[in-house]
């Protein structure tokens, strides 16, 4: 008998649950069996029984939570059959190791869970890959037509221009520890900043891991001893702590898709907002749905009202899953 999509996957309090396979995807609380799309802390949480993810996502979880973050782990390599479904992992272009997960029941609709994804080329991870599906479960972090992220290299150029304009003021860029920080570093390199870049202590192990994985970040020094470094990368939380006080007259910057909106930039108190996002913007989000042409779109988190309205205009059935617990652009 053919399964309905709603019987294969549905939201529960612990997160998205795949009933025939008896596992959760990016569960919000400890569960016996989990598949994890990527290492951001609101998607990858410690304390599950068995975790399946890409090797890089598992490595990142071990770096963040310690080697014993789960009772057992399995590297996702090629399709695996679990219960009555086959699951496979496909690059999502979001952060190092990030994946979309395709659930293909023996008899039922193919369901693609995007996780967080990004279609702008990202020097620190594999590019997003189109996967044919019947049901597309997507994020909608930037699900309003005001979000059109500029070319990230142009934004990095603005950072470099400000360093040239204010050579005596240290430039502090707030960027989340996993993905955004390394991307900002790689972008600054691509935009022509070759000097040492200082990183906050909280970024050290994840930056080291990216370098281990063959991503060139150039010379990095510790922010506790920045020497001549004009550019300092720190997690945004550091801006509200006395840590900032060691820098004289800094230019505070913040790299995020939210910087599109001035009120957000003002609220952060930044002087140099940089619109650099690891999520699809509105044109990419809508183009992706057109390209995959799914029968139905389900929306996990973000600005679901905007995307729901667009689907309505386009005549594509959609429904919000209203999953609580994923942050807007977290880490």
């Amino acid at each position, binding site marked *: 008998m053919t399964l309905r999509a709603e019987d294969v996957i549905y939201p529960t309090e612990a997160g998205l649950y795949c009933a025939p396979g008896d596992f959760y995807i990016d569960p919000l609380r400890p569960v016996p069996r989990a598949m994890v799309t990527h290492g951001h802390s609101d998607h990858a949480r410690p304390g599950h029984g068995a975790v399946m993810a890409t090797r890089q996502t598992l490595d990142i979880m071990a770096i963040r939570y310690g080697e014993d973050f789960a009772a057992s782990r399995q590297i996702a390599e090629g399709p695996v059959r679990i219960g009555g479904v086959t699951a496979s992992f496909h690059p999502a272009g979001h952060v190092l190791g990030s994946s979309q997960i395709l659930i293909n029941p023996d008899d039922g609709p193919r369901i693609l869970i995007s996780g967080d994804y990004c279609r702008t080329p990202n020097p620190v991870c594999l590019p997003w890959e189109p996967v044919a599906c019947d049901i597309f479960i997507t994020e909608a972090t930037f699900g309003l037509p005001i979000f059109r992220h500029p070319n990230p290299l142009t934004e990095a150029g603005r950072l470099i221009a400000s360093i040239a304009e*204010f050579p005596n*003021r240290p430039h502090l860029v707030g960027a989340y520890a996993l993905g955004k920080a390394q991307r900002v570093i790689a972008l600054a390199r691509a935009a022509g900043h070759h000097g040492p870049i200082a990183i906050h202590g909280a970024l050290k192990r994840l930056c080291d891991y990216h370098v281990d994985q063959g991503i060139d970040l150039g010379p990095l020094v510790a922010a506790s001893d920045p020497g001549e470094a004009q550019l300092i990368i720190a997690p945004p939380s550091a801006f509200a702590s006395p840590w900032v006080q060691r820098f004289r007259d*800094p230019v*505070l910057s913040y790299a995020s898709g939210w910087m599109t909106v001035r009120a957000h930039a003002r609220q952060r108190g*930044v002087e140099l907002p940089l619109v650099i996002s690891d999520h699809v913007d509105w044109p990419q989000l809508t183009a992706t749905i057109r390209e995959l042409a799914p029968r139905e779109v389900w929306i996990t988190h973000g*600005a679901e009202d*905007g995307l729901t309205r667009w689907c309505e205009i386009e005549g594509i059935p959609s429904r919000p899953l209203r999953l609580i617990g994923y942050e807007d652009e977290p880490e």
Partner: protein
Amino acid sequence: MKAFARLLERLAFTPARNAKLTILSHYFQTTPDPDRGYALAVLTGTLDLRQVSPSLLKRLASERVDEQLFRLSYDFVGDLAETIALIWPTDAEVSTEVSLSQAVLLLRETGKLSLPGVIADLLDRLTAPERLAFLKLATGNLRVGVSVRLAHTALAMGTLRGSEEIEEIWHGQAAPFLPLFTWLAGGPSPAPASAPFRPVMLSTPITAEELAPLDPTRHIAEWKWDGIRVQAVAEDGMRRLYSRTGEEIGAAFPDIIEAMTFEGAVDGELLVRRGAEIAPFADLQKRLGRKSVGRVLLQSHPAALILYDILAWRGEDLRPLPLSSRRARLEAAPFDSPRIGLSPLLPFETWEELARLRAAPHAPVIEGVMIKRLDTPYIAGRPRGPWFKWKRDPMVIDAVLLYAQSGHGKRSGFYSDFTFGLWEGEELVPVGKAYFGFTDEELRELDRFVRRNTVQRFGPVRQLAPKLVVEVAFEGLNVSQRHRSGVAMRFPRISRIRADKPAADADRLETLRAML
């Protein structure tokens, strides 16, 4: 338009004056004519442009964007021009450059009927940051915190000219300021304006100890009024009233303009005066910043000028003369209007006598005394020595810190903006905000206090446990409808941290009101 859009964005997010100057001066140095001149005009508010109404913009957007998506977006962004700039659908990622001059000319020359079409067409050809810059321009809503004086200082940077020289010729110039930029680059002087502004001479503060070694007989003293410093110039049939930064404010003071029947340039204090009684600053504030003034306000808030210097008279430049001669010329000059009077000289032979006068002024709108050396010419700027202001001791009150917000620039990472309150019954009522007055060491102490005593956060604002008493010094008090406390302080600052004093012993609101 790209460079202009970048400029506006950087200015909007850069709070520090010096950083603003750097950004502006780079812009003027790297932007070609005539764009930089139009930018200068836009920033200094000297460009008269057609204003586009919000309803026109909304209509344009509704023709391009689904209504529901627009509403969701507007709710999220909170600003109409910004929403439209971001949401406006365009095909091309890279646009052909539209210059600022082209945009300005379009706004200036397009008739009302064709305006919507022209704007839509222009928005199609701009990138999102340019669209925002254009829409802010079109709605007359730049809010980037650039004063005329700041623009002049930035123009002067890296050139042979000083900002006072720029102020002096400024009023003869108009967008796109080609002769001005040629002159800044070393070219000939631009044509002089009629009834031009003369850069003003400013005073420096002084204390009783610093005053002691000076010779009282070589100085005069006058009241320091709590009005605004103005320059009234009537020459070649033109009458202009300038603020001390050279901005024209005559439109708000037609009664003064009418009284300027002389031929010359004089320096003085602008105040509201009813009969012999000079009204508090708040009354003058009702007149300031207006494009026009109605008859009722002219009658209820009549303006007056108290003159203390004369810079030019019937074609003769008096600025090189010593103050003693200028004062004599001022006293001899006929001003046949009751609205214009002279600033009286205070009788004193010793600094102690002056101190007694200063301590007991006859009117509350006096905020101290001015002391001027008799033998110096009128020098633009703030030379240390010839002119001093000796302010009345500030009023102080002990208040409790209630909220804190972090600062910018040099104070990044420090909680440096404070709201304080006084007791009313069992409750602490916020009475003002202070951003300065403390030393770097005290700032660190305040910052530590904030971090350890936060009870709640609202975005960037921290609510504090009401424990710390600070001494707040201020220059005066006004009745205020907008403040819950009913009073507004002038120039409040934290003069001392009173860690020794328990919060319950801080002052009460009645005490502050009694100082009115």
